[in-house]
C-alpha cells in the first residue's frame, strides 16, 4: 500500500499512514481551510487499509489543537476503526495529550465513549 505522508503547517497536522512500517499517526494542529478536501485522502487511505489490515493496528492521535469541523472528521475516522474492531481485527487508538491540557484529555474521553474501540489516553 502506498504511504500517505502530509507535512504539517500552521493549520494542518502532520499525517503519516504507512502500512509496511506500521506507522499510523496524525499530529499537530487541525484547522484546514477546506476540511472535506483536506481529509478526503486520509479517509480514502483508511478505507483501503481496513480491507486488508495488519495483524495489529495502533493509530496515534497527537493533536495540540483541532477545530470543531475537524472533530467531526476524527469521529468519522474512529467509526471506520470501530467497524474494523467489530470484524475482529486488532486495533488500538492511542490518544495523546499534554499533561496540563484537560480539554484535550476530555476530548479523548468523549471520543472513547462514542466508539467501541480499545482506547488509550496517554500523557505526553
Amino acid at each position: 500500500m502506498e504511504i500517505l505522508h502530509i507535512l504539517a503547517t500552521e493549520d494542518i497536522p502532520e499525517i503519516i499512514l504507512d502500512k509496511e512500517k506500521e506507522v499510523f499517526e496524525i499530529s499537530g494542529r487541525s484547522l484546514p481551510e477546506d476540511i472535506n478536501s483536506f481529509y478526503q485522502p486520509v479517509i480514502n487511505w483508511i478505507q483501503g487499509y481496513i480491507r486488508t489490515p495488519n495483524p495489529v493496528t495502533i493509530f496515534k492521535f497527537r493533536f495540540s489543537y483541532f477545530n470543531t469541523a475537524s472533530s467531526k472528521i476524527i469521529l468519522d475516522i474512529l467509526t471506520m476503526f470501530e467497524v474494523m474492531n467489530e470484524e475482529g481485527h486488532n486495533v488500538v487508538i492511542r490518544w495523546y495529550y499534554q499533561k496540563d491540557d484537560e480539554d484535550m484529555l476530555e476530548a479523548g474521553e468523549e471520543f472513547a465513549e462514542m466508539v467501541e474501540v480499545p482506547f488509550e489516553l496517554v500523557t505526553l
Partner: protein
Amino acid sequence: MPVANFNNTADFFEFVYGFYKTIKANDICLVYEGKITHQITKSFISLAEAQMAEDKEAVRVQRIILHVMVECLQNVSRHADDHDPGDNIYSGKGIFMISKNSFDYFFTTGNTVLNEKIPALIEMINKINKLDNPMLKDFYLKQMREGRLSDKGGAGLGFIDIRRKTGRKIEYYFLPVSEKISFFMLTTSVSRTT
C-alpha cells in the same frame, strides 16, 4: 488637501486622534473590517498568540482563546451572507474585534444575515445558553454524531464549543439594515484567570 470624507487635513487628523483615543479607552487589541478569509484567520491567530505570550497569559487561557477565535472567525467566513454586489456596504463582509480588561478578553463579531435566518439563530443560541455543562457535552456529542459537514465545512458545533470552553453565555444582537437583511453581532468573553 482634503482627505477622504473630510473638508481639510486637520479635521481628518482630529478624527484619527479621536479614533485612537476610543481604541485606547476601550482596550481594543484588534479590530478588523472586511472579508474574513482563511489567511486572515491564520494571521489573527498568530498575532494573538504572540501578544498573549508577551502578556504571559496562562497556557490554559491561551488555549481557550485559540478555540474561541477560530470558531468566531470561521462562523463569519462561512455565514456572512453574500448579497448582490452593491446591494449594501456590508455584503459578505464582517467585523472582528478583540478587547480586554483586567479580568476578561472579549471577542466580538458582526456580519449581515438574511432576516429569514434570524429565528433559527436565536433559537439555537438561546438553547445553548440555557444548557449546563453535562447537557452541553451531550448536545455536542449528538451534533457530532448526527450533524453533517456542510459544503463550507461547518458542523454546527461552533457555538456549543465556544460556550463549553468559555463557560460564559453568548450575547447577541440583531440590528435591522433593510427589509432583507440585519447586522448580526455576537460577543463572548474569556476569563483571564481561568
